[in-house]
């Protein structure tokens, strides 16, 4: 079954309790989470391998909030490996974002355009902010 994350998240974490909710070690041992999350495609081995080999080519745009989802997922499953991999990916992509945001004309083509199209929402915001800052600087230098 498909659930929105806001619901799935809490259901997966919260255990059902067959009493009035008194925390009791014995009971906790017997309890189970309401639901079990199925590993989504974007955390599959295949996808993660793609991230490793082609960090800048990965299209994250379809997963609008990729980093937020990673943070939630890692929290739930304490997945340190995932966090490490994704952090590395982020650094690589962020450097590229910074490099492109520095370009003065807003003309992007080929690989650059493809990379920008593949950004997820936080990355897009980062790009825009960085671009605004560089622009402000260049306008200031040109002024007067």
């Amino acid at each position, binding site marked *: 079954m498909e659930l929105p994350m*806001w619901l799935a*998240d*809490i259901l997966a*974490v919260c255990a059902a309790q067959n009493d009035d909710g008194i925390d009791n070690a014995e009971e906790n041992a017997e309890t189970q989470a309401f639901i079990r999350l199925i590993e989504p495609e974007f955390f599959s081995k295949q996808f993660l391998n793609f991230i490793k080999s082609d960090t800048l080519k990965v299209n994250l745009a379809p997963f609008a909030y990729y980093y937020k989802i990673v943070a939630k997922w890692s929290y739930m499953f304490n997945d340190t490996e995932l966090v490490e991999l994704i952090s590395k990916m982020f650094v690589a992509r962020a450097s590229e974002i910074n490099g492109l945001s520095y370009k003065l004309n807003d003309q992007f083509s080929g690989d650059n355009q493809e990379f920008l199209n593949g950004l997820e929402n936080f990355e897009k915001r980062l790009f825009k902010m960085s671009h605004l800052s560089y622009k402000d600087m260049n306008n200031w230098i040109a002024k007067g």
Partner: protein
Amino acid sequence: MNFNDILKDFETEAKGPKLESDKHRADDIQRLTDTWIKEKSVPELLPYAGELLDRLLVGVRKQIEFIEMNSIELQQDEREIKLLLVIVENELDRVQFLIRSYVRVRLSKIDKFAIYLRSEDEELSKLSSNETVYMEKHLELLMDLYNSQFLASMPEGLQALDEVAAGISMVEKPEYERPVFVKCKRDNHVLIDDDEIELTRNGIYVMRYSAIRDLVSNGEVMVL
């Protein structure tokens, strides 16, 4: 008042009262500038610089009077007094800008963190009395708006505004963990994730605010 201030006071006392007021004023603009930068840069609301502002506002009033007095008698070709007024007015604009921006930055933080601020005495004590009045009244207006728009027609159990639903609090707090740029006035060290990090004098660092919050508040580290 810290040790340096006390030392400075001794210094000025030795030079006599006439210099003291001047010296004080000289520092006040610098203090205002620093206070503004700090308030803008850090994620939390800082204590209101009331005494400093009061002193500066007296200065502002005096200069406004000065301009009014002198500009009335001003003749077209009195370049001398005109130039003087230009300088006075320029400075006035600069000080007014700093105060305005400082007050507005604070207001936006107060609006954002209102519920959090009023829930903790320590936080509340950072507001001026005017700010407290503003915060309470603004909350009241918002409350009325929510209530009349939809909240009142909801089940009673749902009418609170500070609950923690699905593990996420509705109360917005300052992002203490957000990184800030700092410059160190002397060698120091901080702990981040159990790692001890050496800070060298004049070094410029970016690190999470929570790690250097104390050093910022005692002035050993300058936020940029």
